């Protein structure tokens, strides 16, 4: 009897699975309010940024304008408190290169004139922001102003040179772990954004060169940022 009952249940289960369902909706699960989203409690997304250092006259004397840049790639966590305020935590990897003029007056970091030379500083950058959103909206990033601070751990500090030698060969040299560059830096950041697009500004408060050994690299970087949103 027991085995017959089991057989019946198996058969009924088979029939249950044999339904040819053309539409099904589970309202209960649809009603669960999500907490992850661009304008919900938690949200995280990747972003990329491209920044251009803004030179003072002093910096223009030894750096090549227009060719120096900072590339960012990072992940952002956003914790929403209400429709207007949120806190953000960023962690990004930055590749900054500052190309140095090669002329007779060259003095940074030395007087040797090469075909090309640059400082390459790669950093890991944690940052914290307060976000102010403007306007009521649905589950969208919206229009915002971010104000925050960052720290840099400069994990790669190099001076790279390129020189053409005989037979059209190119000689590339790199001096790594430059002792005259600080391992850490900090500064302020701001961002004005509309959805996935933002204009960013970064101001370095700390010096990069130890003991003022060289004129400072540009403190202000202006750039564009693209959020990689779903």
């Amino acid at each position, binding site marked *: 009897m027991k085995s017959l009952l089991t057989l019946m249940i198996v058969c*009924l289960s088979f*029939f249950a699975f044999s*339904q040819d*369902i053309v*539409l099904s*909706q589970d309202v209960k699960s649809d009603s669960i309010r999500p907490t992850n989203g661009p304008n919900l409690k938690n949200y995280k997304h990747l972003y990329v940024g491209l920044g251009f250092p803004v030179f003072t006259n002093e910096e223009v004397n030894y750096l090549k304008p227009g060719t120096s840049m900072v590339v960012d790639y990072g992940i952002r966590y956003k914790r929403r408190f209400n429709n207007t305020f949120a806190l953000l935590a960023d962690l990004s990897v930055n590749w900054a290169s500052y190309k140095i003029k090669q002329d007779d007056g060259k003095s940074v970091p030395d007087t040797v004139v090469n075909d090309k030379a640059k400082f390459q500083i790669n950093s890991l950058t944690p940052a914290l922001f307060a976000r102010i959103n403007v*306007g*009521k909206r649905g589950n969208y990033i919206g229009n915002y102003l971010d104000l925050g601070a960052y720290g840099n751990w400069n994990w790669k500090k190099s001076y790279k040179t390129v020189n053409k030698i005989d037979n059209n060969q190119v000689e590339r040299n790199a001096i790594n772990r430059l002792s005259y560059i600080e391992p850490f830096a900090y500064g302020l950041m701001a961002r004005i954004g509309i959805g996935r697009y933002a204009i960013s*500004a970064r101001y370095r408060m700390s010096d990069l060169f130890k003991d003022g050994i060289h004129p400072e690299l540009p403190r202000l970087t202006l750039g564009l940022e693209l959020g990689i949103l779903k």
Partner: protein
Amino acid sequence: MKSVYFLFFLWLLAAPTLIKAQQPCWVYFTDKKGISFEPKKYFDPKAIERRELQGIPLNDPTDWPLNEQYVSGVASITDSTLFSSRWFNAVAVYATDDQLDRISRLPYVSEIEKVELLTSAVASLNDFDTTLSEDNEEILKNQIKSLQGDLFIKAGINGKGVRIAIFDVGFPGSRENPAFAQIISEGRLIATHDFTKRKGDNVFWGKSHGTNVWSCIAGKVGDKQIGLATGAEFLLAKTEVNREPFSEELHWLAAAEWADKNGADIINSSLGYTKDRYFPWSMDGKTSFVARAANMAARKGMLVVNAAGNEGTDSWHVIGTPADADSVLSIGGINPETGIHTGFSSYGPTADKRMKPNVCAYGHVVVSGSGGLVTSQGTSFASPLVAGFAACVLQVNKGMKNMVLFHEIEKSGSLFPYFDYAHGFGVPQAAYFVSRDKKFIEPTFTIVETTDSVNIVVRKDLIRKADETAEDSHDNDLIGEKYLYYNIMNSKGVLDSYYVVKVSEPNVVNLMRSNYTSGETLNVHYQGYTLSYKF
């Protein structure tokens, strides 16, 4: 130099806060003291007739004009007033924070509500074609037939004497369009107004969505009938722009008050506001301004018919607003190929678990475009099909109150009393109104209980052959009657889940009792017959 750059950086941080932008707001007044109102001068005779028939007072304070001194008091602080609402005793203005602060201190201002950025969701249109393929001919025929519109046509019912207001993005080319030639030549295009420019009556510009929608209510080209209310009168309002940062909900309210004043019986609004401004859980019929405006329009005696929305397949998923308003007849879309819910049609229920959509109609249709008959899709077109249907019902039921009409249309639904949140009560059926005979429907299935399961077993003679051809198809296939529908309703009357199942064998559904709790109800519908079973 370092300090100069630091100052520049600080300026960059502060710049956005220094910009004193004007923002749109509603300013509500405390009262309408000292107002005189002459309803017979204000309302169109048709509006007076509707109110008298429905027992709605002609001299209601919500219809009185605003106190001009209050309006000018606000206008003297901000010179940018947009629109005033009699219904809400409010004026919409652009104002800075400073101005709002001053306005809020006026003794006759009760509340200020900021209006935020919003955009409209209007169904997309396909490219047009002047010829119709055989398949599209079939769709054109069936978009009427699925509503049993042929019964209205045979009985000479065409919405005559019923006035319909259409709110849309524009009606370009409609004056030259043969689909509306008779309406225009007979002077049944009563009034037009462009609320997006706040001046002029020219609504014949913008996107052709409104022209397409109008054709689904009343279009007829030669012997090709697109909508049912070919004899109705029309008010056309341009309330939408394609994508605007502000004001369409204001336009909607302004147009509703204008429609009321001009004697509209029915409003068709094939639009909705969704994710740009709201969350799905805001769709409770109370949160959005436009939902409140739509409910007010219903209180004034107009039947408001609104498209459910086209977000069924995206993450939003649910109806938009004002389709969430309880007094709005929300219309879902069905697929002509299957007769059941079409994927893009937004699902209910509302956030507070009320059934939406209320009924449904074809979501893939033939419409009249500027150059001829074209196909298009969206619940934007299901809504006017039902609005035209409602006009026909109202023609033969003069004086029927709008909310009675609302519920009668629900009762005429092909699934009624069964419902789900994809179809509502199904596709309205003209036979309910024309023949009025309640035919007895023989049981088409039984619910068989065993110790462990509950089984739905359909009659063998009703099972369709697997190899059936087009010739074997029935009229009822147009409204998905070859499928079996079932849902699980909890003790609060809210559906927890619902299904549509293809029937290819007698034992269609087997439900294990252990999966259900006491108090839950199984509701089943198959070929016109509905039965419930309590677990």
